[in-house]
């Protein structure tokens, strides 16, 4: 069984975001990049799936050379090989999905994992788009997964609960926190990763239908009011919330 996991390379969540000089992307000064946090759950689930069903796992990432760090991390965790679809441009999610779908098809992967969203552009759609382009079934925001033979049963998180979803292979799963506990890369894993290959090739080009015309800071909030410095302020706070803000 060929298993693919698609990973992205994103600014650490502790990053302070500043708008860059081009007015369309972030200022890269001092920004540390990491494996997209949700992709760690995707990588772990891909490895668990391989352990249960056999086969091999390939990590695929679309982006610049720096994405190799994230692929390398996946290899250190136990992924067998990596593919970097090289592209330094800004492209929209649909165009990313089209390039990934081509590669997944070429790899012959029948089980494909994504993180439920990348914490940079927060679209949370590349998994679904890729599934639809491939004609694969899919379950998004998965918090549990069982694959037996051809049959897939997953739970996905929804507002106030979970949906139990049944489907069949081939399938795309997008991972939510809670799906598993991602393993740490062992020293042996890190050493082994150095000997694994990352295939590099240009990402297939597709026209972007969505264009970012500007990036801006969120509106500043006016400074708030300190209502008090002990519990006696509770009465005044309730009055303000009721009469001034009118929210309770």
């Amino acid at each position: 069984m060929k298993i693919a996991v698609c990973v992205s390379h994103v600014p650490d969540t502790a990053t302070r975001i500043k708008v860059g000089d081009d007015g369309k992307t972030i200022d890269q000064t001092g920004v540390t990049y990491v494996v997209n946090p949700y992709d760690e759950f995707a990588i772990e689930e891909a490895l668990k799936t391989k352990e249960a069903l056999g086969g091999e796992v390939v990590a695929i990432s679309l982006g610049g050379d720096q994405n190799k760090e994230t692929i390398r991390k996946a290899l250190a965790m136990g992924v067998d090989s990596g593919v970097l679809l090289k592209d330094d441009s800004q492209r929209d999610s649909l165009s990313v999905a089209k390039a990934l779908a081509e590669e997944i098809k070429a790899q012959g992967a029948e089980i494909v994992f994504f993180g439920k969203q990348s914490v940079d552009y927060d679209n949370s759609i590349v998994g679904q788009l890729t599934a639809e382009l491939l004609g694969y079934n899919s379950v998004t925001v998965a918090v549990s997964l069982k694959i037996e033979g051809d049959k897939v049963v997953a739970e996905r998180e929804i507002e106030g609960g979970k949906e139990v979803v049944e489907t069949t292979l081939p399938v795309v799963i997008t991972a939510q926190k809670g799906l598993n506990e991602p393993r740490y890369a062992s020293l042996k894993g890190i050493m082994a990763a150095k000997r694994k290959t990352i295939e590099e090739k240009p990402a297939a080009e597709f026209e972007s239908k969505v264009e970012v015309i500007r990036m801006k800071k969120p509106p500043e909030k006016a400074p708030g009011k300190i209502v008090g410095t002990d519990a006696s302020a509770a009465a005044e706070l309730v009055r303000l919330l009721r009469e001034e803000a009118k929210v309770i």
Partner: protein
Amino acid sequence: MANKILVFLEQRNGEVKKASLQAYKAAEQLAGFFGSEVEAVTIGSEINGLENVGAFGIKKVTFFKNEQLANYSSSAYSKILTNFAKETGADGFVFSNTSMGKDLAPRVAVGLDAGIAMDAIAFEKEGDSVVVTRPVYAGKALVDVVIKSQNKVFTVRPNVFDAGEAGEGQAEVDVREAGDVDLSVKVTELKTSEGKLDVAEADIIVSGGRGLKGPENFKMLEELADLLGGAVGASRAAVDAGWRPHEDQVGQTGKTVSPNLYIAVAISGAIQHLAGMRSSKYIVAINTDKDAPIFQVADYGIVADAFEVVPALIEEVKKIKS
């Protein structure tokens, strides 16, 4: 989008979601730019009082009905909606950015070969284009995007567009039997936490952080949230400590929320947390550290011990509720 804009009305357990009514208002704004028509479409088995969505200005709803579609099916729902858009010649499709909307909208976008913009918080007309404003980096920045393709799909963030007060009026409901549905992906069971309000849907959230020292101390937050008709949220620190489930986590690796009132109790306000809640309409911070970053986004702050302030707040709220 000079032709027609469709709005997907999402139902769960036969109830139309408030977020869908808000999405309709957003679609009306889009339609106003180009003088296009707006109509609604929904899918399900039985839907309670569907015609009553007319009270929110919806004139026409097409209801694709099939008893196997009471629960969500990504395969069936996306095919029905894609075909319906093609049949009606709609070139705009609006969803709410809920777990169903997020799952469904991109599939429809592929079906219509449409550009897609997610999680819109504002629309503006610039020349002949619609500029969509959406948060990125969990709200640490915003981008303005333009969809260049003829067909366009949008999702709109819940609680940003106002559905308005219910007025008079009933919608024309066109019920169509949905036959021969593709159930290759199917929800077989809905596990909802009985009576639990999700932070993503709550108008009021009382959220707790590491400063609460242990899971037992969330009881007072639950009491306060109950009194206010709200939900209890948590910071990542509280979730990572195992005090609260991940579904309650607010922040960059949890949920992004925009309630009317967000009360942050003993939360210092790490940048990841602020990212997830700063678009709340009113923010209250209760923290002993006057320099905590949470106070920079708060409308009202009390610099004091949560263990004293929260019980006092509970008493005050009880007074006004009685």
